[in-house]
C-alpha cells in the first residue's frame, strides 16, 4: 500500500529544499574537526533547541553525550554526530507504528488545534486507503468553522469518497452517530472523522471531543480504533502541552506530524514520544494527496542530524 511504500522519499525531497537552512546548522558543527570544548557543547545544545526539541531535552542529550566523552568512548567532535543520531533514533524508533485499521469498520478520529492540517490529512488518508482498495467513508464533524463542511465535501468529490454531513452549526455528535451507523450498516472498511480545530485549553471543547469519542464507542465497542492528534511541525514547546492534554482528555493512539515540507523539523515530537509514549502514525509532507506517509525514524533523524 502506498502509505508504506516509498517511505521517506518525499520527505527527503522536501528536506533537500531546505538544506540551506541546515547547512550552517547541526551538520556543519558536528562534522567539524574542532576540539570538544564548552563552546561546542553550547552550540550543539542550541542546535537541538533550534529543531524545537526544547531546552531541557537538549540539555539531557548533551549530558548523555558528555558522559560518553568522559568515559572516553568519544574523543573527537566528528564522533558526536553519530552519537546524537543514535540517541535520537533510540528515542524515536518505538514511535514508528502503523495505523490499526484491522476492524470493520475501523474508525479514525482526527483532532487537534486550529489549522494544524486535520481536514487535509483526512482527505489524504481517505484517498490513499481508497487507492489501496478499501471502502472509505468521511464524516464532517467540524460543524463550527465557516465552510469546514464544504472543504471536506470538495475533497470527497475530488477523491470519490462519500462525506456524511449535516447543516453547519448542527451537533457534531449527531453527525458522528449517523456516520458510524452508515459505516457499520454497509460494512465499510474505514470511517474517518474530521473534527473542528480546538485549543486544548478550552475545557468545553475538550468535553465535546470526549463526547464524540463516547458516542462512537457506544455504537461500536472498541472504536475509535485510532484517535490521532494532528500536529503542525512548525509548533514549538506548546506542542507538548497539546499532546498531553488531548491525550488526557480522550486517550490518543498517536500523532500525525504535518507540514514537514517546510523548514521546521518538528523536534517537539521527540518529547511527546519520550514522555507520553505516543507513536507517530503519519507525517504530512505537502498539500497534495500523495503527501502523506508513514513515519520513518531514520529519515526523520536524517533531517535533524544529517549523516554528512
Amino acid at each position, binding site marked *: 500500500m502506498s502509505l508504506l511504500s516509498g517511505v521517506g522519499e518525499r520527505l527527503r525531497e522536501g528536506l533537500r529544499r531546505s538544506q540551506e537552512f541546515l547547512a550552517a546548522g547541526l551538520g556543519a558543527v558536528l562534522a567539524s574537526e574542532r576540539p570538544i570544548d564548552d563552546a561546542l557543547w553550547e552550540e550543539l545544545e542550541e542546535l537541538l533547541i533550534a529543531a524545537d526539541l526544547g531546552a531541557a531535552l537538549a540539555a539531557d542529550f548533551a549530558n548523555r553525550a558528555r558522559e560518553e566523552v568522559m568515559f572516553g568512548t568519544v574523543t573527537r567532535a566528528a564522533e558526536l554526530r553519530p552519537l546524537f543520531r543514535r540517541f535520537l533514533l533510540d528515542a524515536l524508533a518505538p514511535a514508528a507504528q502503523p495505523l490499526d485499521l484491522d476492524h470493520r469498520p475501523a474508525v479514525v478520529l482526527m483532532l487537534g488545534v486550529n489549522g494544524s492540517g486535520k481536514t487535509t490529512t483526512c482527505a489524504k488518508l481517505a484517498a490513499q486507503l481508497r487507492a489501496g482498495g478499501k471502502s472509505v467513508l468521511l464524516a464532517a464533524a467540524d460543524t463550527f468553522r465557516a465552510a469546514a463542511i464544504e472543504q471536506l465535501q*470538495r475533497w470527497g468529490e475530488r477523491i470519490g469518497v462519500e462525506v456524511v454531513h449535516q447543516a453547519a452549526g448542527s451537533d457534531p455528535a449527531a453527525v458522528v452517530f449517523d456516520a458510524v451507523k452508515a459505516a457499520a450498516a454497509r460494512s465499510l472498511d474505514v470511517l474517518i472523522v474530521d473534527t473542528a480545530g480546538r485549543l486544548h485549553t478550552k475545557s468545553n471543547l475538550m468535553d465535546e471531543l470526549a463526547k464524540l469519542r463516547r458516542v462512537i464507542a457506544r455504537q461500536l465497542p472498541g472504536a475509535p480504533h485510532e484517535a490521532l492528534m494532528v500536529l503542525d511541525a*512548525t509548533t514549538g514547546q506548546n506542542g507538548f502541552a497539546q499532546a498531553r492534554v488531548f491525550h488526557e482528555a480522550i486517550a490518543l493512539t498517536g500523532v500525525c506530524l504535518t507540514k514537514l515540507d517546510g*523548514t521546521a523539523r518538528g523536534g517537539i515530537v521527540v518529547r511527546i514520544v519520550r514522555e507520553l509514549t505516543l507513536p507517530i502514525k503519519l507525517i504530512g509532507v505537502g498539500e497534495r494527496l500523495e503527501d502523506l506517509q508513514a513515519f520513518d525514524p531514520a529519515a526523520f533523524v536524517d533531517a535533524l542530524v544529517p549523516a554528512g
Partner: protein
Amino acid sequence: MLDNLSTRLQTIFDRLGGRGRLTEENVQEALREVRVALLEADVNFKVVRTFVERVLARAVGQDVLKSLTPAQQVVKVVHDELVELLGGSGHRLAPAPHPPTVIMLIGLQGSGKTTTAAKLARHYTTQGQHPILAAADTYRPAAQDQLQTLGAELGVPVVGAPGEAPLAICRRAREEAAARGLTPLILDTAGRLHIDEPMLEELRAIRREVAPHHVLLVVDAMTGQDAVNVAERFNRAVGIDAVVLTKLDGDARGGAALSVRSVTGRPIAFVGTGEKTDALEPFHPDRLASRILGMGDVLSLVERAQASVDQEQAEALVRKLREDAFTLEDFRAQLRQVRQMGPLDQLLGMLPFGRALRGAPQELTAESADLDRFDAIIASMTPGERRHPDTINGSRRQRIARGSGTSVQDVNRLLKQHAQLRKMMKQLKGMEGKLPRMKGLPGFPTPRG
C-alpha cells in the same frame, strides 16, 4: 514543568546572597534561568543570546548588585527590556490618503489568515468604516466559501469566485472598492511555505499590481524556533509592514513574537484571541512580555473574567484575589463561581505565580467529583474552622473526614491547596509596586470601554 521565573531567580539569589555581596558572575548565573525561560517560551535561540547579553549589561549597570531584592530587580530589567524590544503598543494601520486603504494578509498554511481577515473587517465596521474583502485563496478547497460565509455574517461584501486567478481577484476587488467607496480593502491570500518560490512570486505580483498599503504577516502564537526563518523569508520575498499574532487564547507563551519582531523590526499590530470574529485585540507589549516570562497577565485575566461573567462576579473575583483574609468559605465560593466561568485552569494560568498555583486548581477543576468532595469537606467544618483553617489539627481532620465521607488525605489536600492559594495571593500583593510596568498589578485597572 517550568517554575515561575521570579521564584527560580529568588532561589538562586537566596543561595548566592547568603554569602555576602553579589558579583557579576552571580547575575550571569541568574541569567541562565532567564535564558531557559525564554527558550521554553519559544524565543529563537539566537534572539535569546543577544537578549541575554543586553540584559546582563543593563543589570550590572543598575542597582541589581546592591539591591536587597536582586531577583525582582533582574525580573524588572528583563521585563522592561522585553517590552522595549516588543515595541510600542497601539500600532495603527494608517489610512491611505486616497481610499481604499489596502491591507494584505500573508503567512503559512493554517496560521489564521482567513479568520483574521474577517476579524479585521469587523474591527473596521465597528469603527464606522465600510470594508470589503477579497477571497484570493483559490487553492485550499472551500477557502473562498469560508470568507463568503464570514462576510455575509458581518454584512461585508466579498469579492472572489472559483475559477478566477488570485491576482485578478485582488485587482477586481480594488476596482470595486474604489467604485463603491469602500475602505479598507482586506486581501486574504492562500497559506504558503516561505520557501515556495513560485507561490511567493504570486504574492509579489499582487503586491506590485495592487499596491497594498499594509502587508501583514499572520503568525501563529504557537510557532517554535522556525519563526525567524518564516518571518525573514516572507519579509525578504514580499516585504511585511506589521504582524498579527493569532491563537493567543491558548496557553502558548508566544515567544515567536519576539523572534519575528527581532528579525523583521516590524511592529505587532493585533493579536487574535479566539475563533469568533470579535476576538481581535490591539497589541500590548507589556502583557506579552509578562506572558513570555510566565509571570501571568492579570490585566487579561480581569478582562477575561469580565467578558465571561457579569461585572459583579468579576469584581468579586478580583477582590478575593487581593484579599489576604481568604477563608475556606471564600475558597469554596470561588471554586463554585469559577467553575461557572469555564476554563478556570486557563484563567489561573494567567496569574502571577500561576504556575505554582496551577497544579493545584487544575486538579480541582479537572474533575467536578473533587469539587463535590471539597464541598462536602467544607460543609463538615464548624464556622470557626472555616474562618481559621490553621486550628484544624489532626483529630479535627479525622472528624471532618468522617463527617464528610472522605479521607484524611482529602482533607489534607484541600487544606494544602487553600494554603497555597493564600500564599500565592500574598506574593501577588508583595509584587505590587515592585514591577511598575506590569500594568495589571498595581491597581487592577478599570474595565475597558
